[in-house]
């Protein structure tokens, strides 16, 4: 397998590798989530794509159509630096959180502090799981920061955060769906690496697969 592959094959295999790592990482995450939610929640990663920044921004436009959005941001640094962003619309997150609450608790109708805390908790479990899998498999050292939550009209949030300013041209775009026992809730997880990180990641992957 020492032959030289072309760029797109290389990218494909990197993506395939990332998808596989994600599955491995999420194996742990799923265990943990089902434990903390008493099997009320399952997690699927149906899609992983590498898309141009402009397209990712286009996606956020769709979120603008939604009334309010919740957006959890988690930074990681080390051999690879970047940010993970998890988007929920307010409706989706309420669906998710209601599904998680023990039946005895009253139904949540608006997003408040408890819910923020829960969302941070779940995001952290998901993101650290993925980062952990990636760093262990590739033997990279990556430290994850604690997540932060922002909530409000999407434009306001986005206006403040200069979204993707530090990102590379291509963004790792992962759609995660949370399946609850009763309802579906969907969230989108975006991983973006700071400039030059993707090539580094890419190189580590090819080394791991002994393709380079």
């Amino acid at each position, binding site marked *: 397998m020492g032959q030289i592959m072309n760029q797109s094959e290389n990218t494909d295999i990197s993506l395939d590798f990332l998808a596989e790592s994600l599955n491995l990482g999420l194996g742990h995450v799923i265990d943990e989530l089902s434990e903390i939610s008493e099997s009320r929640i399952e997690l699927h990663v149906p899609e992983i794509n590498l898309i141009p920044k402009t397209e990712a921004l286009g996606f956020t436009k769709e979120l603008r159509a939604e009334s309010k959005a919740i957006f959890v941001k988690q930074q990681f640094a080390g051999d690879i630096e970047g940010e993970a962003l998890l988007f929920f619309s307010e409706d989706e997150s309420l669906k998710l959180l209601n599904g998680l609450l023990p039946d005895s608790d009253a139904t949540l109708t608006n997003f408040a502090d408890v819910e*923020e*805390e*829960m969302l941070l908790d779940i995001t*952290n479990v998901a993101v650290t799981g993925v*980062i952990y899998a990636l760093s262990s498999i590739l033997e990279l050292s990556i430290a994850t*920061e*604690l997540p932060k939550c922002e909530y409000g009209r999407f434009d306001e949030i986005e206006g403040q955060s200069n979204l993707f300013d530090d990102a590379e041209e291509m963004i790792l775009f992962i759609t995660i769906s949370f399946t609850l026992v009763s309802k579906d809730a969907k969230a989108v997880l975006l991983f973006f690496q700071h400039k030059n990180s993707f090539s580094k990641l890419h190189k580590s992957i090819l080394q791991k697969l002994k393709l380079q």
Partner: protein
Amino acid sequence: MNNKDFYLQVLGLMDVGLVLINKNYEVQLWNGWMEKLSGFEADEVIGHSIFDVFPEVSGSRIDKSINKALKHNCPSILSSKLTRINFPLFISSFRSNEKKRIEQSILIKPMDLSDNSRCAVISISDISSSKLREKALREQTTILNKVINQLKEKDRHFNAIFENNQQGILIFDGDGSVINSNPAAEVMLGYNNRRLKSLKIPALIDELPQYLFKKGNEDKLQSKLPLCNTSIEMAMLPESGKKFPVELNANVIPFDNAQNKYFVFFHDITEKKQTEIILYKMARNDSLTGLPNRSSFIEELDKTIQHYKRRNNILSLFFLDLDRFKYVNDRFGHDVGNHLLIEVAKRLKQCVRSTDTVARLSGDEFAILLHEQEKIEQAGMIAKNIILSISKPFLLDGAKIDIAASIGISCFPMDGEDAAVLLRNADLAMYQSKKEGEGRYTFYTEEINHLLQQRLKMETELNIALRDGEFVIHYQPQYDICSGKIWGAEALLRWQHPQKGLIFPNEFIPIAEECGVINTILDWVLENALVDAKTLLNNFGAEFKISINLSPRQFADTGLPQKIEKILKKENISPESLILDITEGHLLAEKDHIFALLNNLRSMGVHIAIDDFGSGYSSLSTLRKLPIDHLKIDKEFLTTDADPTKQKNLLSSIINLAHSLELTVIAEGVENKDQYDLLIQQHCDITQGFYTNQAVAIKEFCNLSASNNQSS
């Protein structure tokens, strides 16, 4: 008091539980809050496994999260709702003596130490009441990060951290009395610990005056302190009297309910400030040419003006713009373009005295400030010199580059009394130079101002025209040469000015383009012409065609096809009835983008006509590839001063070619019978022009009989 005790004191005052655990799960740090709520003193737990202290936590989510921090370097947030087992921490209820287990929000973060071992920092906050909960999330992360950063600061050796810390720390209470300090603060301020404790904050921090520490001013004090994980710059007042700048951040320690205490962390930023001064200098100069930039030029101009006002001096201001710079950039690339700017800057400096100021405002715009002049004429001499100097070829990277400079000149005090006005007037004069051709200079005059005023007036009038509906569309009939019947109409925009009468587009469109109302006007034309089209189709039958000119401005509008589709639907007009005219020259520029747009429109069913064909330089072979349905011959081909045979042949070949490409040929500007007959002879399809009928309002148009052709 050493730093370690000091830290413990700070940690003890915090309204958050803090526990540090080493890789063997042994407790290393246990703050006052933990002591209070767990019932265990620090001495009892330090060195013991956390699971010996709290056996029920073993195997829980907390256990797993500690493990994740220690083994996987992953942080955790354990939300109360999703954590079945929390720490057994209790508060006594006010009403009874009953102890109540608190609801908890728990953060666990890994922390690497310099000896490569890792520990976990746990912070716990009480969120039993919703108010506390809100506070916890906002503050806990901040405090935890701060504590970790403090612990990691300077030397990563765990014990060493407590002994020496670069940051100065002061703890004080609400009335400003210093309660304690660390050695770094003592060194920086030049007071010993005992002396500091006898002082009040206003004597130590310049920005925190006495009144902030009066009773009832707590809010004001808190608003002055950077409490939210931010830091601000303040000045410290040391014993030596030599003020020094620090970066400072602060925390409130809620203590015994009402009696808040504060601590501030600060470090000396004298050196950083000096770097800032250098950066400031860098910020004032253009990095490419080294010349002052716009903001520093305006500053200098302002200063000079203030100075000259008192002394009745005059000065001249040049606004200089390079001609053809864009071409150089496009043709030779940006590196050569940049190189050229550097060389231009050099030549400009050679043309003026060393006391004069040359600045680069932006792109290829420069400004020159000529100080203390005796006569205005001198400025003209210098401008001439500059133009001559810039017009000499530049030899750059093997290329010979010819450019020119256009200059506008304004003078103080005659042409304005402040920098903004002078710069604007010089800019206007430069604009005038450009209009007259390249390599010229113009002094600002009232006349230029007058032209500007006129333009401004027209801008206002254009807006009024839009508001009051002074725009009208006239329709020029197009006749089918074979049948003599009306085939269609070209929509032509007119401005029915209340005083000046009918104004043609060439008089107002350029100004509309400059002042940004052009798009509104174009949209107006599109919408109204299509409304009229409905009437015309009713009067002249379904085959009737309405032609509307498409401006290059509209090419940039990506929503154009949707816009047109929407109007067509609304008016219930078939797309085949609409022809969009595009001038040949515009069609050839930016080909890819325009082709895509036109193909998009054609796929809807709309027809495209190439307008003024023959005025541009499209080769006949490209004609084949253009996404068009009709061809409008430029009226130049009908002018009679050309050689009649040549003219006939040329027309014949254009028409034949168009027909072989299955394009309908439309001749415009047909003014007399000779031209008309020639077109019949050459089998042209459609004609329009003064000879057949001039453009008229919609009402009149409808009165034209369908076959009202003068020639038939």
